């Protein structure tokens, strides 16, 4: 057993915690935070398991993937925050309208 697995399990936990909050809470800012935490969880799984190379340097390919992933995450977060502000600017509330209002 190595540390790699422990971190990977934490990553899986973060993913599911984020997923729970994404579904269970209505406030858009909280949903955006939840997606960011889900993302961190996925990145943690990718990088933690890359350390299973024993004493050698860890596998660099997942590291590169995560660096691009972090940049995607910040772009998507910025777009999501802008949309949230537009929605709340028009409705006065940062929640999605219920389905009955379609």
């Amino acid at each position, binding site marked *: 057993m190595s540390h790699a697995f422990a971190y*990977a399990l934490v990553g899986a936990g973060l993913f599911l915690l984020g997923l729970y909050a994404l579904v269970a809470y209505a*406030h858009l*800012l909280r949903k955006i935070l939840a997606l960011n935490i889900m993302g961190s969880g996925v990145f943690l799984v990718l990088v933690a398991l890359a350390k299973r190379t024993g004493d050698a340097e860890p*596998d660099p*390919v997942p590291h*590169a993937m995560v660096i691009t992933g972090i940049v995607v995450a910040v772009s998507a977060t910025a777009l999501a925050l*802008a949309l949230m502000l537009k929605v709340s600017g028009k409705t006065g509330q940062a929640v999605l309208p219920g389905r009955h209002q379609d």
Partner: protein
Amino acid sequence: MDVIVVLEWAFDAVLGLGLLWLAWRTLNSPDLFKAIVLFISFGLLMALAWVRLNAPDIALAEAAIGAGLTGALLLAALARLRTTTDNTMPAQLPAGSWFQRGLLIVLLSGSAAGLGYAVWILPSHTSGLSMAVTANLDVSGARNPVTAVLLNFRGYDTMLEMIVLLLAVLGIWSLGGLPPRPERPAVAVLDTFSRFLIPVFILAAAYLLWVGADAPGGAFQAGSVLGAAGVLLLLSGWRPGVRLMQWPLRLALTIGAITFIILGVLTLLYEQQLLAYPVAQAGRMIILLESLATVSIAVTLAILFLGESPDPEEKK
């Protein structure tokens, strides 16, 4: 030696549990400001986790983006949100009934068990692609394996990433931009502070870009630090002039992608393969790509923070 092993385990255990606990408190604290501060702290701990996992390149990116820029973006969004919404709505408003949330918890606990088992049974020793990377590192033009993967072995992914960044800007601009951020008038302290700090940021970015080919660092990290310098400038009240917001800005946003495409076409013509650099030129091409990508990334991140549309008519 044993002492170190015990200490390492203790450290990792505290860090791992701390991450989970912070994530949990971030997601369910009633006050949104508190949630954001907790999220920033979560980013700090994530960076420590990257260090523990021997991923200094990611730790650098996380330090700049995860803990810094995302935090600033969230705080600015919250400031704008408080001017547009009534604060009477409980921030912790649940979606769905208790029954639905209970069902969700049961489902996710099941998934947690399955996912945990799926991770647990993975072989405990494997080298992944690291052998292949090491074998080709000499001809890749970079001595830092992560840079070699990002700019050479999987450079095509990075080319598409540059478009992802551009699309985020296009998305915000097409929404008509955000209303100007409510802010206090810049004070002298802040002005002096940023005057001192911004040259240091630029120096640090240049350093990260320069060492990136050989040591942890590179375009994404340098771009994020430079972008943070831009955010600091914007925070201390500086605004780009109207003329600067037109084509010079658009060129700066796209220059990374343009360089990738031009190099792609050239390599396609001369090497018959997209982004196949001749071995003798690989090092120079990577430096060129990284420098211009740094510019694009930095400007994009600063513009994402500014959030205003470049079109003066749109601001109405």
